[in-house]
């Protein structure tokens, strides 16, 4: 019978995609969605969490904060969401999908230049005009919004050649030596310290980016989710974040 065959095929597909209903013998999986800039730190925190919780595995999903927020609002099976922008978290709260979002880290912006600083960049003031080719994030994304806020606070202006969709793209252009400077997060500069040089922005601390974490309302494992958040905000998680270059919230 055709309908029967279709049902069997659909079941097989679901099983392949890992969407089968959990059975008693299977390990419990905690789904954590986090902003791309948290990749290194959250990977280490997840390892700690799994060590403390035998039988539990953490599935990490890193992407741009906006995309993650949209997935959650669309009903994706996520237990914990960590964003790199309070505005993005607001869209999740407003949709009634966040349970008690709280800040857990901050990040500040910095200038990165190709190794050896060929264009001789010494600060934000050097990034205006067409002599220095600068890449920054598009104002639509969190790192771009932060950049805009910083520039507004300092009264400087930057003539960028490209407004990139995410901070990794900006960093990649600096690494490839296709631009003379880029504005990225300190944590990104720290992660690629062997490939780029950093030119700190003294005023950066005046406009830090807040990172927020929350349990998602439809989480199937609320207790585990809260445990994970506690680990992030506790001393162990905070130390890992400090090591990666994040500031205290």
């Amino acid at each position, binding site marked *: 019978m055709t309908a029967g065959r279709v049902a069997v095929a659909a079941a097989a597909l679901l099983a392949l995609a890992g969407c089968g209903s959990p059975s008693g013998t299977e390990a419990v999986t905690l789904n954590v969605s986090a902003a791309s800039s948290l990749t290194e730190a959250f990977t280490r925190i997840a390892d700690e969490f799994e060590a403390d919780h035998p039988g539990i595995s953490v599935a990490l999903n890193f992407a741009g904060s906006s*995309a993650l927020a949209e997935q959650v609002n669309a009903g994706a099976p996520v237990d914990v969401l960590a964003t790199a922008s309070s505005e993005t978290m607001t869209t999740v709260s407003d949709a009634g999908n966040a349970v008690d979002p709280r800040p857990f880290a901050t990040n500040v912006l910095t200038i990165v230049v190709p190794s050896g600083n060929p264009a001789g960049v010494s600060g934000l003031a050097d990034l205006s005009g067409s002599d220095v*080719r600068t890449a920054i994030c*598009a104002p639509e994304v969190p790192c771009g919004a932060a950049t805009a806020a910083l520039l507004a606070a300092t009264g400087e202006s930057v003539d960028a050649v490209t*407004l990139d*969709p995410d901070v990794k793209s900006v960093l990649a*252009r600096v690494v490839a030596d*296709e631009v003379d400077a880029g504005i990225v997060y300190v944590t990104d500069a720290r992660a690629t310290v062997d490939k780029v040089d950093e030119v700190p922005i003294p005023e950066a601390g005046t406009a830090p980016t807040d990172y927020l974490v929350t349990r998602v309302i439809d989480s199937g494992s609320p207790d585990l989710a809260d445990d994970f958040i506690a680990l992030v905000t506790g001393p162990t998680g905070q130390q890992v974040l400090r090591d990666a270059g994040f500031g205290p919230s």
Partner: protein
Amino acid sequence: MNRAAAAARQPWYIAVPGVVAVAFLALPLLGLLGQAPWGGMWELLTSEEVLVALRLSLTTSLAATAVAVLLGIPLAVLMTRSRAFGGGWVRALVTLPLILPPVVGGVALLAAFGRRGLAGQVLFEGFGIQIPFTTVAVVIAEAFVAMPFLVITVEGALRSSDRRFEQAAATLGARRWTVFRRITLPLIGPSIAAGAVLCWARALGEFGATLTFAGSFPGITRTMPLAVYAALDVDRSQAIALSVVLLLVSVLILVGLRGRFLTGLRR
């Protein structure tokens, strides 16, 4: 049921997957149309930001098509007429941009024309010219990704065209250039048009290679697809509206051109 209808009826193993395929292609488009903010559409379409991106998309995609036509037709001729270019390696090279992820194409273009690239280094150090982050870079990225559509279409037409027409022209006293211009090109004209339209459509939709190689800056390198992607982060409905614009422009031009080169075939 009358006999003609019975004869035309397709067996289920053709009809069912065929209809599924149509639904598969049509559903995402219908979804897009359904979610489009039709109310604010006109305002959005005439906004400075959209007009700038649309103008840039149209000019760069047309320029890329022109580049593809000017370089691609001679390449197709070489591939069919010259022993050296007829080999499998040229064909593989031409096909490569079709299967390469566009982002990889962008990285490859940087490796060639970036200021640390093979040719780009010479341009940069010798003349101070930097190609990335310029509108020229957008055209290059689009041409790189889209030219294969034209080359492969024209090459196929040349292979199946009757070379004896060219011989007949030669016996009538036509020199090679005259033969090429008045016989070879007109005979494959419909295929050139078809190839150019495919190429243009691909150039218009180009995203990955453009973002990687040319960057994204309004009015200079941010074409419609890049504007859609940028908008996606702030306002989903705006991104959808932009996509719908891109879709409508493509459909309008495709339909318009299709009518034209169909009449060309009939003539």
